[in-house]
């Protein structure tokens, strides 16, 4: 795996406000990396710095292992906060400006407009677009230079449910094409649905970083019962990847170690000729964990 973004000890102060404190972050190629945190936690500040528009107070970052330059930014597609375009220009004319900046041929415009379903409206002025259309134009503009990295800051903010669904679908389909995506959001559900990795920010500090699957797996509990409870208890105990083992009422409740999964346990039971009449996997929602994390970090 190659490193796309490396952030080292980055801090930003606005006067007395410590918007970002000693942030370290590592994004690998192909990650869909969520930057999660409540409003005001420093997500936009972080993205502003790595996109060259906010001056860091201290610390450094590198893109693709190189010191950041304007040239490098041309290979990154990014939107910070709300979509920003020249309101009096049409969608297509706006993209022409960006083609000139990124030095890509004008032929790049049509495919991205079609991808976000705006080709029919390309000649209408940007100021007449709905918020959803503006957001989609922003994604089109970010995709213009066929970048290997896409940065999205609260891309579904303010949209209606249908708009939210459209944008998420778009992000997922872009992710499947192998691009690296960095997504800032205060919505846990969004990060959970879209991301492979995430970091949690709180008041400018990173309080957690890891893969979404691991975070989910950490809290998986498996609940089982069988006509022959004795045999089930016996067989299950011999499964080597258990973290905890409890017999509650008429059910067996176990937690699995990291890396082990439910189907391995199930296979182990079948091989011991155990027939189950009940099996549920309970995931503590990421939401609960997120709230717990935020509460823990309360100082």
């Amino acid at each position, binding site marked *: 795996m190659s490193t796309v973004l490396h952030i080292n000890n980055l801090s930003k102060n606005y006067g007395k406000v410590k918007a970002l404190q000693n942030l370290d972050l590592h994004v690998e190629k192909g990650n869909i990396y969520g930057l999660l945190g409540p409003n005001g936690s420093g997500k936009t500040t972080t993205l502003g710095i790595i996109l060259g528009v906010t001056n860091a107070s201290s610390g450094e970052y590198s893109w693709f292992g190189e010191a950041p330059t*304007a040239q490098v930014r041309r290979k990154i597609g990014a939107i910070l906060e709300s979509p920003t375009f020249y309101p*009096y*220009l049409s969608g297509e*004319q706006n993209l022409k400006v960006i083609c000139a900046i*990124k030095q890509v041929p004008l032929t790049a415009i049509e495919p991205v407009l079609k991808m976000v379903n705006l080709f029919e409206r390309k000649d209408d002025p940007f100021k007449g677009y709905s918020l959803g259309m503006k957001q989609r134009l922003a994604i089109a503009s970010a995709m213009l230079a066929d970048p290997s990295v896409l940065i999205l800051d609260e891309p579904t903010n303010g949209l209606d449910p249908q708009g939210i669904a459209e944008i998420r679908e778009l992000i997922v389909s872009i992710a499947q094409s192998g691009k690296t995506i960095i997504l800032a959001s205060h919505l846990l559900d969004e990060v959970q649905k879209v991301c492979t990795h995430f970091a949690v920010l709180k008041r400018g500090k990173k309080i957690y970083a890891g893969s979404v699957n691991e975070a989910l797996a950490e809290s998986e509990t498996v609940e089982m019962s069988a006509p022959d409870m004795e045999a089930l208890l016996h067989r299950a105990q011999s499964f080597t990847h258990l973290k905890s083992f409890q017999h509650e009422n008429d059910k067996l409740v176990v937690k699995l170690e990291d890396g082990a999964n439910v189907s391995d346990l199930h296979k182990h039971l079948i091989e011991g000729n155990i027939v189950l009449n009940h099996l549920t996997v309970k995931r503590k929602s990421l939401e609960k964990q997120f709230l717990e994390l935020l509460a823990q970090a309360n100082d």
Partner: protein
Amino acid sequence: MINLLTIEWLKLKNYKGFWILTGLYYVSLLFVCTGVMGFLYWLETKGANFQGITPTIIPFYEFPDIWHNLTYLASFIKIFLAFLVIISITNEYSYRTIRQNIIDGMDKKGFLFSKISLIATFSVVNTLFIAVVGLIMGLIFSTVHDLGSILYYAEFLLAHALELFTFLMFAFLIGLLVKKAGFAIVLIGLYSLIIEPIISVAWTDAIGTAVVPFLPITAMNHLIRVPFQRYIFMEIQDYIAWKDLLIVIGWAITFTYLSYLTLKKRDL
């Protein structure tokens, strides 16, 4: 540089407000450059005369004096051109497109150069405009038409271009600093039409006399001095003084550098 100018062109070419203001400006400039004869006729019908001289015999469009006369007059309406420059930078702030330009892959120097190339274009186009209009008016009204006379005072055209460039860079810097078009326009107007002229008239002690020529607006005004007393047989400065030239160039560099520092230091 060509690419930077292209970017600026793409931003402006479909901007109605820009073309309306530009159109109005060049119509005014045309009026200023061609209307003097009419104005003199009007003065004559009102019975005006200057120490016994009837206005219409003033050879305003005579080569080579015409360049001095026209560039002097044209500098009075440069403030309207400054509005265009102010709008072109404050819009980038109110739409936040300056931030997106940088994100998309311009560097701050590139952004500044794209605006400078716009300002330089304005200065050059303005000067060419005056050159063409002056040439036509001169060929119509001047009594001499030889190339030597036509080109003799052409340095005033270059000085006009420099004066305009410097003033527009000043407007750009103010627009960049205050980010609001209305506020910037009021500031520029107040400073260049009221505050500095008052200072330069009122500050007459030894220090004032030494300092005033170095003030930016005064220095720009000194570059091309009032030409009209020549028509009442008084002496005028009919050349560009090195000292004024250097001061104005110094201000042009200062405004450009301060703009660069502002862009570099500021979060977008």
